């Protein structure tokens, strides 16, 4: 069915009923913002070089406008009078099997919805929104790639996207509490669970619980060093929300509302999202819109909180602990799509000896290729790794030995890039570097 022949399953066959459902999704999602994004493109192609897929493999199918054009063709055919009357003249096209295949490849296969083309478009076209709409249409007719579909379903069924049981979660936390006590020789260290009216509730990416528990330890060390009134919830603790990537607003809403309920039950003031790019974007910028109501609590990223702790003198760092050259990869969902640009730099300037920027960086940074749920869609892994060449070149040019980031999908993709392109770098979370550099109060005589 697709270029790589992976979508031959019956569920990827279009029927009249599926066509009607997909078009209905498009109809319902057509608000002013989407209408403008679909109408305004002048097909100048200036967005091409803003896409890491295009830079790594410059072919017309990798131009962001080309991807968005697939949905525009459908929009014109069914929603624009000229597209209905003279489809050939304005490039309108039926939503048929061939178009569905093009949409799958464009929306799921070669776009991470990173938004770099949006920032670079002279017309301000929001291609992210167009791609997410295409994904929503495909998801509504059960044409989501298997891995992404499963990730969303597991989250809905088990309460977290890796199916971690409450027992395993609590055991991991207890284990990390013991480890941290042993590391610091301080029996008063706590990882509080379900503490009512704590100021802060912290969330995790399930990967931390399952594969990277040392990141839980790092976060706990930072919270304890800052003397924070914090807790974790067993009711809902997963920071991720792959509904953002599948385009399924109903699933997104359900996942977000579970977390909202947990925070409300604990009566916390602040929900702090783990270093997870899309998790932050989902809860900070999208969730309230999915739910149709404003949260009574504040949502912030752990990156913002760490910067605040340093600024307020609540944690003190010894940068000499991290003497190697460090560069920072801005996760698209935190920087370009969330405005967290200065904070990681502020942190690194205090936590490491030698910080160097990769070029470009900040809002203009290139996506590493791990966004958009790409890591869950193994069908497109080859293209994902190929597109990662842009990031590999960026890293190489810095001469850094450590690449810091603050997103799990970025962390995984950067690690794959490191192995594939044989980069002699270590990939680390921001909190790991901070935790290592903390001057523990007892050591400083406090």
């Amino acid at each position, binding site marked *: 069915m697709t270029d790589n022949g992976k979508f031959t399953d019956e569920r990827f066959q279009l029927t009249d009923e599926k066509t009607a459902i997909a078009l209905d999704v498009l109809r319902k999602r*057509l608000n002013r913002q989407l209408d403008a*994004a679909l*109408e*305004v493109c002048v097909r100048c*192609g200036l967005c091409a*070089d803003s896409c890491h897929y295009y830079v790594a493999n410059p072919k017309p199918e990798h131009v962001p406008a080309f991807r968005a054009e697939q949905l525009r063709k459908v929009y014109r055919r069914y929603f624009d009078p000229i597209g209905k009357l003279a489809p050939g003249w304005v490039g309108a096209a039926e939503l048929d099997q061939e178009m569905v295949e093009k949409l799958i490849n464009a929306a799921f296969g070669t776009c991470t919805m990173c938004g770099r083309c*949006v920032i670079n478009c002279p017309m301000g076209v929001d291609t992210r929104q167009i791609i997410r709409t295409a994904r929503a249409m495909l998801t509504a007719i059960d044409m989501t790639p298997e891995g992404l579909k499963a990730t969303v379903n597991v989250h809905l069924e088990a309460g977290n996207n890796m199916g971690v049981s409450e027992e395993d979660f609590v055991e991991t936390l207890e284990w990390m509490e013991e480890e941290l006590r042993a590391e610091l020789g301080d029996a008063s260290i706590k990882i509080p669970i379900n503490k009512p009216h704590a100021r802060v509730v912290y969330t995790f990416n399930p990967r931390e619980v399952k594969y990277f528990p040392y990141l839980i330890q790092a976060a706990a060390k930072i919270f304890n060093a800052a003397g924070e009134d914090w807790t974790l919830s067993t009711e809902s603790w997963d920071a991720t929300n792959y509904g953002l990537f599948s385009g399924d607003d109903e699933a997104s809403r359900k996942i977000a509302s579970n977390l909202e309920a947990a925070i409300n039950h604990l009566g916390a003031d602040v929900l702090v999202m783990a270093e997870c790019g899309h998790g932050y974007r989902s809860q900070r910028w999208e969730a309230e819109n999915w739910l149709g109501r404003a949260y009574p609590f504040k949502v912030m990223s752990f990156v913002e909180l760490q910067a605040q702790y340093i600024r307020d003198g609540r944690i003190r760092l010894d940068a000499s602990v991290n003497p190697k050259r460090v560069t920072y990869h801005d996760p698209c969902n935190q920087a370009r799509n969330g405005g967290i640009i200065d904070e990681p730099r502020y942190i690194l300037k205090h936590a490491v000896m030698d910080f160097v920027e990769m070029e470009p960086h900040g809002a203009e940074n290139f996506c590493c290729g791990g966004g958009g749920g790409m890591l869950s869609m193994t069908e497109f892994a080859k293209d994902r790794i190929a597109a990662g060449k842009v990031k590999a070149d960026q890293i190489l040019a810095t001469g850094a030995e450590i690449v810091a980031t603050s997103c799990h999908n970025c962390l995984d993709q950067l690690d794959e890039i490191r192995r594939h392109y044989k980069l002699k770098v270590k990939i680390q979370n921001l909190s790991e570097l901070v935790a290592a550099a903390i001057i523990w109060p007892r050591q400083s005589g406090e």
Partner: protein
Amino acid sequence: MAANWIWITRWIAVIGLAIGALGIISRLQAILSRPFKQDLARPRGSIRRGVLYAFTLGMAPWEKESTRLHWLAYFRGIFFHLGVFAAFAVLFASPWLAAAPGWLLWVARIFTGAGAVFGVAGIPMRWIGENERNLSTPDDYFAVLLTSIFTALAFGVLVEAALLPIFYLATALLAIYIPFGKIRHCVYFFFSKFFFGLTFGRRGVIGQPDAS
């Protein structure tokens, strides 16, 4: 006889412009009838600054990587559009062109002449560039050709007043086509830029102090 032609074609232009305006109003009505997606998330940056940036500095050639890399295409577009705006100025001033000061006519000639050249240049550029060719529809070529002819005729009128009736006919054709083809981006541009400024300003990504 010539005066009659001017009078008749001028009215054809007026009717064409009226039809075009109705089409644009209909397009505006269509987009405004759609729901506006409210953003309930607490702002991180200034929305006002974001929108201001989107319509001002954000359009400067040095502000975006895309326009820094493709400066030729950017400036072609800028001069083409300046030419089109100048051509409309010529159109609305056409009954009184004889009374216009000479220097103003020269300025208008430069803008419309350059606009027409840069407009027509867009056709081969679109055809030669593999990406642009793949993206293009017949409407893309027709729209740029029609607008370039209109701009060229505005220049022509400033050189030879006898071209006025043809200019008026081209005006009618262009005006009627605007709401139907890609030229209607002139309507959606303002919405798109506003939403861009709104979204990324709210998130503190663009137009903020110390932000690019």
